[in-house]
């Protein structure tokens, strides 16, 4: 099976976020970036499918030069080669989900993969749609929020997460696109050997198709207003514990 894993590079979870001047986006200069967590699970699923059934795993990411570090990590974990769709950070901000998916679709078409995997949503924008829109643009079936993937004679049998602890199996023919949920597999670390090998693996750089008019625009980002007035408690751990017990007794009334 030839599998493409579409990966997004996002700010690290613990990163201190500051709104940029003019409030159109966040300050990016001193941010630390990492692989979008659900995409890491998509990569893991792809690597396990390859180990079981053979084939090739290609990692794909769109963004400025910095995304090549995330692609290199994926190569070190066992992906065979990488495609970097080169697009400046500012240009990327001017593309909505449809624009991003169109750009990825263009890079994917030439490869004709059997399977495309991606995380179910990004940790930064969280729109949760790029995979589904990509499948629609490529004219292939999709299934979302997938926990497990098994190969069958006619395609794949996937375990899809539903709400409130329910699941469902879905049979899907290939080629197909799946959006992967976190937690289905245990993530691997890159080995020293893997890191060494990654240096010999190919990363192809392709130019992004020109941006088109957006359907939706992100007009402003800002700190959320508090929904509740939070009373902050301070002091030594013992003092804080004593204050909390008072609250539990007299305000919350559970003691």
């Amino acid at each position: 099976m030839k599998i493409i894993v579409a990966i997004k590079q996002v700010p690290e979870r613990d990163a201190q976020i500051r709104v940029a001047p003019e409030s159109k986006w966040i300050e990016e200069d001193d941010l630390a970036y990492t692989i979008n967590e659900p995409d890491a699970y998509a990569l893991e699923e792809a690597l396990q499918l390859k180990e079981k059934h053979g084939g090739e795993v290609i990692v794909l990411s769109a963004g400025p030069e910095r995304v090549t570090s995330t692609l290199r990590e994926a190569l070190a974990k066992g992906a065979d080669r990488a495609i970097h769709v080169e697009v400046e950070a500012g240009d990327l901000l001017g593309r909505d989900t449809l624009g991003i998916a169109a750009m990825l679709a263009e890079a994917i078409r030439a490869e004709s993969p059997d399977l495309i995997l991606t995380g179910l949503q990004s940790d930064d924008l969280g729109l949760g749609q790029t995979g589904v829109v990509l499948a629609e643009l490529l004219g292939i079936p999709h299934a979302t929020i997938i926990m497990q993937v098994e190969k069958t004679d006619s395609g794949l049998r996937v375990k899809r997460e539903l709400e409130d602890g329910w699941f469902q199996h879905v049979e899907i023919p290939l080629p197909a696109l799946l959006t992967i949920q976190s937690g289905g597999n245990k993530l691997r670390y890159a080995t020293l050997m893997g890191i060494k090998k990654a240096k010999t693996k190919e990363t192809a750089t392709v130019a992004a198709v020109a941006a088109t008019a957006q359907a939706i625009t992100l007009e402003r980002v800002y700190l959320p207003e508090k929904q509740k007035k939070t009373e902050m408690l301070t002091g030594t751990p013992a003092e804080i514990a004593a204050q909390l017990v008072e609250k539990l007794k007299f305000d919350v009334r559970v003691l």
Partner: protein
Amino acid sequence: MSGVLVVLEQRGGVWNRMSFEALAAGQQMAATLGTTCSAAVLGASVGALAQELAGKKLEKVFAVEHALVEPYTADAYVTVLEQLVKQAAPAFVLFPHTYQVRDFAPALATRFRQVLISDVIAIHADDAARGPVFVRQLLQGKLNADYRQASRGGPCFLSVQAGTFRADTVEGGTAPVEAVAAQLEAAQIRNKPGEPFRESAQTVDLSSAPVIVSVGRGIGEQENIPLVQELADALGAELAASRPICDNGWLPMERQVGSSGQTVSPKLYLAVGISGAIQHLVGMKGSKAVIAINKDENAPIFEVADFGVVGDMFEIVPELTKAVLAAKA
């Protein structure tokens, strides 16, 4: 092209609990915009559900029946809803932000060269000339963002987050029911869905627990779980967790609170080391009181907390356990 069309979700003749929240959102948005609100329900047989909607304040109820839309598949929904949206020609198509909507609505919007504005937490519809602003959360709830449809050339698609609008604010009235004949053939459906199932019988019912102590990523490693278990025991509370803890197998999945786990509304929700990603907050924001302990003062959990402590949970939690036991003695 005018009005708001709310597409409700049902399975086997039972509404998804978020359907009427979406209906409330649609009615309120239409009222602010000075336009009409209609609703649609899809299924193999939706007569009773459509009749229920006919008792709401709506311009029209679209009853879309086709044997092939059950069981749910994205292909069937996209095909049928594309026809409905073309026929009804609404300016806005509004969905509840359910897992099912996440599966098909982005593809439906693509058919109209539009992008779904997903997981909306507020709608500001007062600027009639420029169109409504839709607020969503970014970066796990650390920031809010205002989104707008770029040009009014096609329908604007949006989905509203659970708990944002109240189902009990849906206005009653009378509305005519219009049957919609959709064209759909079996060959258009590529996926074969199986019956929904649960992994194992749910033995923990967090939804009835009066006190919940919940633990998140801040716990660091599995060996530290007993620290919060002791606090839960001292308080006579159920122990719960955010998704990453259950993903790692540190606590069973049935103790997970959030959109993929249980929805709870205890008297007290004590969140330890939980940053408060949206997916977690939707599962616990109905709690009567929330106490949050987190090392990051900017963690979104503090936005919904009544009492907050910024500090090291490994120092504070044992002290709190001690103090609770002393207070009970």
